[in-house]
């Protein structure tokens, strides 16, 4: 799996760093908890910038190449920040046989971005995911925590509109 690595400069706050240090402190005696620490770090920062991986490596006393190896191995670890409204389209089997690919392609056209990318204004990002367990509603996508089901390509512009209005860009 090839991952997109962010070129956006890192901007962590002291609060975030304090939270991360607290997480590291509570797990540093158990190297098998490396992934747990990385998962918590990702929920603090929204993604795992290189700088954060360095902090984890130092704090857990684990070589950086191991931390980096883990972050690139697992799909869940994001090396670029997601948009404010991350969109993930299910390309699980049940969704695929019911036309999810057309939904995914149409979203790329509408947003003008490819998979794993973020719109220049930082509002939307797009990715594919696998089975979110709502196969009964296939094809489905999630925008943030909201699930949209029984999708057809012609419904997408309307759904995006709602979020654009929310952000005042429509």
């Amino acid at each position: 799996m090839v991952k997109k690595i962010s070129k956006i400069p890192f901007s962590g706050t002291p609060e975030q760093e304090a939270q991360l240090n607290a997480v590291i402190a509570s797990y540093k005696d158990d190297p098998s908890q490396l992934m747990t620490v990385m998962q918590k770090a990702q929920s603090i920062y929204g993604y795992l910038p290189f700088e954060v991986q360095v902090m984890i490596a130092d704090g857990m006393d684990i070589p950086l190449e191991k931390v980096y190896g883990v972050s690139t191995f697992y799909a869940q670890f994001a090396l670029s920040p997601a948009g404010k409204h991350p969109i993930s389209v299910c390309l699980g089997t049940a969704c695929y046989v019911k036309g999810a690919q057309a939904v995914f392609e149409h979203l790329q056209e509408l947003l003008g971005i490819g998979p794993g990318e973020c719109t220049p204004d930082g509002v939307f990002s797009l990715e594919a995911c696998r089975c979110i367990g709502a196969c009964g509603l296939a094809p489905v996508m999630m925008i943030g925590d909201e699930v949209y089901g029984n999708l057809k390509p012609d419904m997408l512009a309307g759904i995006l509109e709602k979020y654009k209005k929310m952000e005042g860009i429509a």
Partner: protein
Amino acid sequence: MTVQELNARREAAKKSFIPGEGSVALRVVVGYATCGIAAGARPVLETLRKEVAALGKTDILIEETGCIGMCQYEPIVEVYAPGQEKVTYVKMDAQKALTVAHKHLANGQVVQEYTIGAATGEARDGEVLPLSKTAFYRKQKRVALRNCGVIDPENLDQYLAMDGYQALAKALTAMQPADVIQTMKDSGLRGRGGGGFPTGTKWSFTAAQPPGKKYVVCNADEGDPGAFMDRSVLEGDPHAVVEAMALCGYATGSDEGYVYVRAEYPIAVLHLEKAIKDAKAAGLLGEDIFGTGFSFDLHVRLGAGAFVCGEETALMTSIEGKRGEPRPRPPYPAIKGLFGKPTTENNVETFANVPQIILNGAEWFASVGTERSKGTKVFALGGKIKNTGLVEIPMGTTLREIIEEIGGGIPNGKKFKAAQTGGPSGGCIPESLIDTPIDYDNLTAIGSMMGSGGLIVMDEDNCMVDIARFFLDFTVDESCGKCTPCRIGTKRMMEILDKITEGKAEEKDLQKLQELAAHIKENSLCGLGQTAPNPVLATMKAFPDEYLAHVKYKKCPAGVCKALLNYFIIAEKCKGCTLCKRNCPVGAIDGTVKNPHTIDTSKCIKCGACMAACKFGAIIKK
């Protein structure tokens, strides 16, 4: 907690929520698993809570429950009353919930038009058909899913009321570890994670290792995209897995276990963590359980989205906090597993069967199923089928029964083409084999496999080459890259499939595909690579004509593969304006003014310029 206390708590628990046993008059449950919430269960639950509070009826209990199994009919609300079959309301919304609250909950009048029988059209003249009598449910038998959609999964007492932890009490007080293993062997239970290895035999390997540190691991990575039975069990009945793992610990001489759950399953993780915490607090996990001297502790680890981590050795490396790459076997995990110690690893659904087997005996379990596949199997039924959802059927049920009766057939009057089982490692079952009784050995014999339980139905509009390509794309993406046959081989296969779907392949490419497949199967290190070619091989075997149509005639009979679609002019609509002819960059269109034009498909480069230019909608692609 002692066994006496466990029994006392069970009796008290029954009074706390079962209508008629204590002070509860009606119990209303809302399906609140991932699927229910996605379909809109939240406003339904809120409305019911608000209305019942307004009615001042403190004897009506409103609760969340796990997946009832009929995803197509979510949001689902069920009402339990003393001495009656429950009433099942489907496709609910806030407005309908209001009506149910005012009519049924306040006045005992069932709102027939919202019930399952009315929705499926099976109920006659206003009859309230119980769920158990519907075609969807009639042939099912719930063992692994027995509590899913019935109890509140976050409530330990409700699990106790359903004889929860009684199997553990029985084993610890009345059975030797060897008796537990013998019972598991006699039951005939085979692993539900895909491989179908006999569970009792697996346990006996770890038990045979010298005493010392040993582990129990539960595989809840559920990687098959389109399968969600393990999620439903963890969301709907987490204590069953906790109890089973403790039983496994007792049988194999282990005092510690790990559950490895996909991070994409937040509700499952939440419910599981709560179950472990509550079990510890009640003394059902931890030190000296039931005063028998047996101790067992359990941890949760989250996966991070790598399919290969479902493979048992990769899963253990991942729990150790590393890149989840498989390692060669032997040594098998029973000898050298997690942290280098003897380890027993089983799937969620496998574990969910265990307490029932210990409690009811091996014979009870083995009385269901076929000669060599005992018990039931849960399938996640999806794709082109009316009733998508979770079904648990006795082994030996035929695919026809699942699709036509339980599943309600194919929507929109389309024709059944094939069912896919086993996900990216599996194969497809064409219509000619639809009467095969489903069990491990039959599915393997017809070129598919049981897999973990994804069952995707396809109709005439699905292209089998495209489906094979879809699965291969998945494995190419998920190959961990450790060994060459899998990493490079699957890419080469993918390139050939791309050529086929683009109409650029020749017949000898089909031969090459077979050779590559055989090489990858033979030489890959782990199950991912060894099974990666299966979807391609299975579709080639079952649908040779469809492959040939793509390769030889450059046609996609299902009309899916874009590159193989051709542009045509409908003669009746063509006015002979010559616009298309002038727009075609390669001169593929022929015709004279005021006469219908034609496209020479051998010259056409499918740029679509003609179609865009035509003012009369006379050009189509098919």
